[in-house]
């Protein structure tokens, strides 16, 4: 386990920045190490086993909406009824109920609207079904668009139309065709 303290850390990170811009690739390594220290600082919040119960209670708090506040969970809200409900959650947990049973207890009393997430049944399944559908639809859309947009290179060359007096448009087509021809003769060397 890494037990880290913050002031040596910030100093180290700052020092690393100072020297890093002169050191090329080593800079990256140092930066990543600084990163790691920050991330591992999160570990200092590991809880002893007794507090796992409190962790669970807080997680349930975040799953219940406060009945009188507009869109706050009872975890966030500081009104008296929210505090009462938090107390009730811990009581029920101490009695041995599971997370689902505690949530169910409140849903029975106040209706399903008290839950931060609708129960996964009936019409409410739609909440969960639609996002993956959007995701899949998006992927299919990409595939279709990419296929539609791709054409053999030779087709990029546009046949020169009759000059109809619109000089701008005509010259633009000429320019683009020159580009296409250039590509075939001198392939793009990408500079970053």
């Amino acid at each position: 386990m890494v037990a880290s303290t913050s002031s040596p850390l910030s100093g180290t990170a700052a020092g690393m920045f100072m020297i890093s811009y002169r050191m090329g690739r080593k800079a990256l390594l140092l930066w990543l190490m600084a990163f790691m220290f920050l991330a591992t600082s999160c570990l200092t919040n590991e809880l002893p086993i007794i507090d796992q119960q409190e962790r669970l209670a807080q997680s349930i708090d975040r799953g219940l909406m406060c009945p009188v506040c507009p869109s706050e969970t009872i975890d966030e809200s500081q009104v008296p009824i929210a505090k009462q409900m938090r107390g009730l959650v811990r009581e029920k947990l101490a009695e041995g109920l599971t997370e689902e049973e505690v949530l169910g207890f409140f849903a029975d009393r106040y209706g399903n609207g008290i839950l931060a997430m609708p129960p996964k049944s009936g019409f409410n399944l739609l909440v969960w079904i639609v996002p993956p559908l959007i995701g899949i639809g998006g992927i299919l859309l990409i595939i279709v668009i990419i296929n539609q947009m791709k054409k053999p290179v030779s087709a990029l060359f546009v046949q020169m139309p009759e000059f109809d007096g619109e000089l701008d448009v005509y010259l633009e087509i000429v320019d683009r065709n020159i580009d296409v021809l250039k590509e075939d003769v001198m392939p793009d060397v990408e500079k970053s």
Partner: protein
Amino acid sequence: MAEIGNIALFMALSLAIYSGSASMLGVWRGSAELIASSYKATYATTMILVVATACLVGAFVTKDFQVEYVAAHSSRAMDIQYIWVAFYAGNEGSLLFIALALSLLCTLAIFFKIDSAVNIMPHVNFVLMLVMIFFLAVMALLANPFNKLDFIPPDGQGINPLLTHPGMFIHPPILMTGLISFSIPFAFGMGSMISGRTRDEWVDAGRTWGLIAWALLGIGLLLGSWWAYTILGWGGYWAWDPVENAGFMPWIAMTAFIHSIMVQKRRGMFRMWNMALVIIAFGFAQFGMFINRGGPVPSVHSFGQSTLGWIFLMFMGLTLLVSFAVFFIRYKTLKSEQNLESAMSREAAFLMNNLMLLAVAFVTLWGVIFPLISELTTGEIITVGPPFYNQVNGPLFLGLIFLMGVAPYIPWRRSSWNVFRRALFYPFILSLTMMSVLIIVGIREPFSVLSFTLCSFVVAGILQEWVRGVIARHSLGENYLTAFFRLIAGNRPRYGGYVVHLAVVCLALGVAGSSFYDLQRDIALSPGESVVIGEYELKYLSHDVRDRVDRIETTTVVEVYRGGAFLGTYKPQRSFYPSFNMASTRAAIRSTLVEDLYIIPGEVLDNGGALFRVRINPLVMWMWIAGPLLFLGILIALWPTKQGNVTSSNN
């Protein structure tokens, strides 16, 4: 004074009507004078609205309680500085603020000509004036801030205490300005379609104003999070509240737009995408205004008036209808000649980017409207809360961060696996090492491991580019410092973009740290008692109660130690406002780059004991660092070079 304000509103409305008509008439008749006159009318609208604003401010200053709005949002006891906030605290005033902001932006958009868009400016002005007319008409006829009561109340109701925090002096104005600023890129897109000139005239202006709008709204959202974190006293910064989402969805759509417009600039592709994106972004912004103004979804933010909300919904519906109608009429002229040459190209990456961002926006929209759909269909009232958004948007955000790390290194048009590998080899190896070390050291939660790894991947890639660039310039003779600045100056859009991406990584760090590794305890302490939480020891010393004019202020004194060392004395504060029957808290926050110690005061009990909620939030400060970094990045990206507003084809 209120009478002058009222007249000013109607004058502004007339000027806007004239300006819009004169623009189109000028185009139809080929009259440059009419067009110039229409622009002057736009400038004049701004000036008249400044007058109207001054009148409302004047009414507040002189405590003219006969004006209904002044009575509703101020009182004799109110400090004069709060007039700033009271101005936009309510529906009518905020509409005036938005109208003022819009007209100012219109004036700027027309005055600071962007060369490539010169031929479409009259059409752009026309579209802008249509939006302007809507807001002015709604305000003058339905929600007039200068309405007078039949009597003169002896005192006003006072200002909502939650609004007296410094954050409220900047978050709402910037957010509202940000939302309405979406009209500008929209107008450029629509103007280009109406004029029939769909040959990319609007791209430079669309990009510039898109970036400005994106920056304004982004900073507004970040400020809102910061305000919620410091004042609301629950230690969080984002609740996926419907109104938060209302600002979030347009911002996401605009993110897609500002990326996608680069493809049009560079290769003349994605014309249809970009037009659709800018219309959708504006549509989301209008939807946001609908939710803000007492739409059917309850929220901590709502202004409350229900009928006005539906008018905004109709405005959005009409706009979408007309915009897409014009889109279909101009469909053929929007087609690009260029084609996508390879699935492994930057164009394809941008396409992927567009779709992922749109997925986030639409999933969020689904979450917002589903309770309504459910109520209409089954009659049951349910809530879609934070767990939904976190579980669905979370993976999408991770995907976007991955794309952020990879896409800048994929060449345009087509690329091979080798090019790719050369560019990303070191970042990949280094982040893989990082991931292994994280797991070995004890960070196991898969989502957070992935988040940190991807963040380090992005940072490594950007740093590699930067360091390589500086070293290359140095080998040509410049010293390191000059090379650093010249590198950025020589390619502002690219490096501005890198800085913004770094800001996004900072945001991601903050979110990852505080979401997965936070610690929260509710405790009761008697005077002199201490408690150990995490690495810290908190000792409650005493409390102090002060009666102020409009509130009762209770300050508690807490000493913080760590490992025996004294860190400081903190004074979290709680105020109770009897006339509003509301309490507000000022948490005591000890911030370091590594974590925040967050002490929220609860009530003080009769026996002198006090209740506290203590939270330890890792890495939160990085979220606030992201703000100035974002601003800096946008400045760099928008900074004009000698050639003109938007430059080099090397990005």
